């Protein structure tokens, strides 16, 4: 009885994949290193490009809107880095199965392996980019304190959430190919609606604060941003993101279990 449920079938895919985590790690590392194989400074182009993006955006917006660069720059740096990680993971996640079609059609391995590969690949990019934060903080003389260590469990919680989001999207986007474009557009809207480059304090009085507090992406970003900015981690975001993780994983395992046998047919 139990063995027939989608949830069980889904977990029989996900947990073996997690046990054999080294395979998606090797593949993810490969994905990154091959992109920069023939360049002199290799994957540090990732860091340089992001640094230029954040520094120019920070200085231009900060000057235009007369913001305090001392606080604004590290703020948007932490927010943009976290947002980029979430954003690229989700949009890559939609293609997790489609891009691995040749592997899926020849080698039987858990479908979840391809999800881990996608998220890990983006985590590696994030790890390259995070060094920008101390550099920017140092440039503007913003002090970092020991709360910054809480960014690590925060990142882990984001990771756990991304895994279920990507699982659901990968399954659905393989079946309905147009959905990937829809997801990209939605992410664009979310980027503008979430306090990434703008601050919550600048929200007009007549706009309900629920606009921000009900947005889970705001909480996700705060998981990493607040500790990096030297603030204690907030109870709210931790509770909300943990609850989302539990519910999301249950749904994702059911979806994966229900459609696992169909994925190869859709490729």
């Amino acid at each position, binding site marked *: 009885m139990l063995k027939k449920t989608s949830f069980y079938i889904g977990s029989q895919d996900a947990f073996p994949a997690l046990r054999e985590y*080294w395979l998606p790690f090797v*593949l993810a590392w490969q994905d990154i290193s*091959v992109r920069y194989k023939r360049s002199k400074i290799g994957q540090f182009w990732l860091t340089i490009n992001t640094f230029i993006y954040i520094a120019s955006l920070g200085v231009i917006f900060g000057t235009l809107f007369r913001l305090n660069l001392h606080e604004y720059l590290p703020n948007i740096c932490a927010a943009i880095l976290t947002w980029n990680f979430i954003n690229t993971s989700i949009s890559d996640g939609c293609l997790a199965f489609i891009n691995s079609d040749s592997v899926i059609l*020849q*080698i039987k391995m858990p479908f979840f392996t391809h999800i881990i590969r996608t998220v890990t690949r983006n985590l590696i990019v994030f790890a390259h980019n995070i060094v920008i934060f101390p550099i920017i903080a140092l440039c503007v003389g913003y002090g970092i304190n020991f709360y910054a260590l809480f960014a690590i469990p925060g990142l882990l919680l984001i990771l756990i959430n991304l895994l279920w989001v990507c699982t659901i999207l990968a399954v659905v986007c393989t079946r309905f190919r147009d959905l990937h474009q829809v997801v990209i557009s939605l992410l664009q809207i979310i980027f503008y609606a979430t306090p990434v480059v703008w601050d919550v304090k600048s929200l007009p009085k007549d706009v309900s604060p629920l606009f921000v507090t009900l947005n889970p992406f705001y909480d996700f970003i705060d998981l990493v941003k607040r500790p990096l900015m030297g603030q204690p981690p907030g109870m709210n975001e931790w509770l909300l993101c943990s609850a989302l993780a539990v519910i999301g994983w249950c749904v994702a395992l059911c979806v994966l279990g229900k459609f696992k046998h169909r994925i*190869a047919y859709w490729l």
Partner: protein
Amino acid sequence: MAFIHLKNVGVEFPIFNAQNRSLKNKVFNLATGGKIESREGKLTVVKSLEDISLDLVDGDRIGLIGHNGAGKTTLLRVFSGIYAPTSGECAIQGKCVSLINIQLGINYEETGRSNIKLRAAMMGMRPKQIEEKIEEIAEFSGLGHFLDMPFRTYSSGMQIRLAFATSTSIDPEILIMDEWLSAGDENFKEKANQRMSQLLDKTKILILASHSRELLERNCTKILWLEHGKVKMLGESSEVLDKYFSRS
């Protein structure tokens, strides 16, 4: 102990973007591939396999034969556990390795040595096993100093050598092949054939799809002849091969 048990297995592909097909297309497709059917007026399905029943146990060496589009590749994928049949029963036990595209997982920018690791990992070898086998694979490939050069600098013969050496270093229980693997010049070919037969000796169940009569006769004890996704004939090698090759 490895086994494969298929009972009345069918495989149907949904085609979501198929437009209305003309009669000409229909007739044309019937001649080469499986059957195409329209379901409830909207969803088109391709029946790739229908009503396949087969039992394989340790020691079985089966050959698949049939013209293009008869469903050989689809059946190979059913055996590998990639396609779960849309109808019928299917039970497969045993570590299964398919050598359909032996260059899968290889990266052209990486060195030969890292490609051995990548390809081996892709086939399900654990890091420890890879460490144990890498020297043997490197030696067998005979590529010497080229192992530290990027794969893209290899000649096509060298590329196949490396892929072959790595792909044949596994110990599968069920081995699935689409045509015979062979590599390189005359010298290497002999070494390669020897290695292939060693691999076959270790394998419990062999499934080989091929168009070559000689190859099938040499390696298989049973032949399954597929036509339009159905079993046309299943039996002793010589008997089925005689029928198949005298048909045209």
